[in-house]
């Protein structure tokens, strides 16, 4: 590490050394109290001491809240503290799930929740389909022998790192009434389109922008899968004179399928929780056209005049169940990939 002379590695080593100094001091100061603890509890209990902070964080901010969430969903009123809340039994769930026909959100008592569910379903159907499709095409293309592969991989990947707010603002600026896309439409003789006034266009751009932002991540996973395929399989196919199409359908796709499955389920899990970029892009509008489950929970619990924590919690439980099922599917898919 210390040997790096000149060049960027030398500089970064020096920076790392300077940054490491206070860290080393703090660790050094902690050595005495922790050695004392070790003397009193014995070495065999030390792993628990190391695990303690992390488990405490999980306990306070994940496990306890999970139980409180259930408790909340059986209470009513606007009080935040559990002790002050009224027990209402399954009233919140009954209210949430009360529909004349489940196919039509307008017949439900809490139509916003159902609209959110339906919107999410429509969103993930299109988003996941095209996300996986374009990630696959991009991965296949980046897997070819092309000039500047590293550059092109970076091009498709960099939006993954952008914050959802930045992504939304970038596209909002492109899509505004006097934005560059409308300028392009006018220049080829079409009329301007007010994208965020139309429910269909708003949904289209919500799907489009989230694919734009996340495609690089899934492309990367598929690319890793493609590169793990043995090259001699392709060589053998070439010797046999198989066409490129045939190689794709008979070798590439079947061998990539386990990775595809993981990508699909991962995209579903993320898709169900869609909020950030669409919230900034469309605000859920026009009306409730692009309002999704998470935004329903956020609005119900935090932005309405009357903060309905009980209802928000009940909706969270429903979301949690959906995610649980999807995660179980993901685990099965991952296991199938790693074993297969």
């Amino acid at each position, binding site marked *: 590490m210390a040997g790096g002379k000149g060049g960027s590695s030398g500089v970064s080593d020096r920076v790392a050394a300077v940054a490491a100094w206070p860290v080393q001091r703090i660790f050094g100061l902690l050595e005495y109290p922790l050695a004392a603890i070790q003397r009193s509890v014995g070495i065999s209990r030390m792993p628990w001491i*190391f695990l303690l902070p992390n488990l405490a964080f999980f306990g306070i*901010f994940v496990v306890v*809240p999970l139980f409180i969430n259930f408790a909340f969903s059986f209470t009513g009123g606007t009080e935040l503290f559990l002790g002050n809340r009224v027990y209402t039994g399954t009233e919140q769930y009954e209210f949430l799930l009360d529909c004349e026909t489940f196919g039509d959100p307008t017949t439900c008592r809490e139509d916003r929740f159902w609209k959110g569910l339906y919107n999410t379903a429509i969103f993930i159907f299109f988003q996941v389909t095209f996300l996986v499709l374009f990630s696959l095409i991009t991965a296949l293309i980046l897997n070819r022998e092309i*000039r500047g592969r590293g550059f092109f991989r970076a091009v498709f990947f960099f939006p993954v790192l952008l914050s959802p*707010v*930045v992504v939304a*603002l970038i596209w909002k600026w492109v899509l505004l009434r006097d934005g560059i896309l409308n300028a392009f439409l006018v220049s080829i003789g079409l009329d301007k389109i007010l994208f965020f006034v139309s429910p269909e266009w708003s949904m289209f751009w919500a799907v489009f922008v989230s694919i734009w932002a996340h495609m690089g991540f899934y492309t990367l*996973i598929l690319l890793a899968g493609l590169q793990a395929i043995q090259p001699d399989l392709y060589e053998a196919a070439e010797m046999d004179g198989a066409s490129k199409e045939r190689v794709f359908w008979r070798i590439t796709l079947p061998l990539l399928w386990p990775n595809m499955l993981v990508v699909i389920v991962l995209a579903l899990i993320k898709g169900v929780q869609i909020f950030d970029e669409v919230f900034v892009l469309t605000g859920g509008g026009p009306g409730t056209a692009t309002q999704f489950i998470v935004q329903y929970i956020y609005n119900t619990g935090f932005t309405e005049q009357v903060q309905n924590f009980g209802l928000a919690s009940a909706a*969270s439980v429903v979301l949690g169940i959906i995610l649980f099922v999807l995660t179980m599917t993901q685990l099965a898919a991952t296991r199938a990939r790693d074993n297969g």
Partner: protein
Amino acid sequence: MADTSTTRRSLASLISAQRGRGKLHWTDVFTYAYLLFGVLLMFGPVIWLVMSSFKTPSGLLEFPPTFLPLGQIEVQVDGHDKPLPLYEVTSQDGTTRQLAQVRRIGIVSQMVDPQNPDTTVKVPIDQRTKVREFRMAWENYTDPLERFNFVSFLNNSIIVTVVATLVTLLINSMAAYGLSIYEFRGRNAIMLFIIGTLMIPITVILVPVYLVVTKMGMINSLWAVILPGAATPTGVFLLRQYMLTIPKDLIEAARMDNASEWAIYSKVVLPLAMPAIAVLAIFSIMWRWNEFLWPLIVLNRSEVYTLQVGLNAFQGELDVQWHYILAMTVVTLIPVVVVFTFLQKFITTGIASSGMK
């Protein structure tokens, strides 16, 4: 090196396609068309954002927009306090001259010749065009520093990112150490429990975590953003997998030398686990810098807003000041671009190997 030779071959086969050898397959054409389109689609909007962020408010209102930031030239004319905007006027006989506009009344504007400021001429507005030059509106970047809480947004984001990343690295590396170096009863159960918390994203427990944070008196403080996400299953998992590869002999040798367990953790294992810690640090910085929903819920006063929440508040205002928003968006984007340019390899291999982001 090897890369260029293979690409040269594929390029050569592309060019020599007509000569029989290495026939041009439709997928070759498709590949380059796709990549070209991809570069345009991925980079285009970002470049457009950066170019637009240097335009003046009036430049932003222009339709159709210009690519480069152009500003109208203004000239100082005797007898007028303020600089006047310069126009090119075409008169009836087809000659053009440059005049400065004094004021505009309806469809007629009163103009003066900067060289001869005493006589004003009336010109219909459709006979004049703005005289413009390339000008970057740096004030879009400097104004927010003085006029809004932008500096405090930036500070808050930096504090959250740095402190949260340090806490994350400390507690997760400790846990990973406990789970990788020791063998004790309940180890697998704890590991399963930690992985299990992956299934409970913050979106599912917004209300109760809000309650916990309120009870702890952290609402509208940066701790409310920093602490809830500090323990990450991803982090523990990533570090543990790496620490498992550290030879047990090293630890035994340190114990022989009477090193305390803490000393082994901080002086032997941590330095060896640096590559994994660096990956987690990069992830954590990305997560925290970009975090939006949770800060949006727990930060309700503009002094404590992070950049993301502040940006969202600005764009939601009735009278959207796009020239400032665009500039602030570019500032928010810069750290990510810097991190990406220098650490691209780290990030991509980190994601490809762990399957997480």
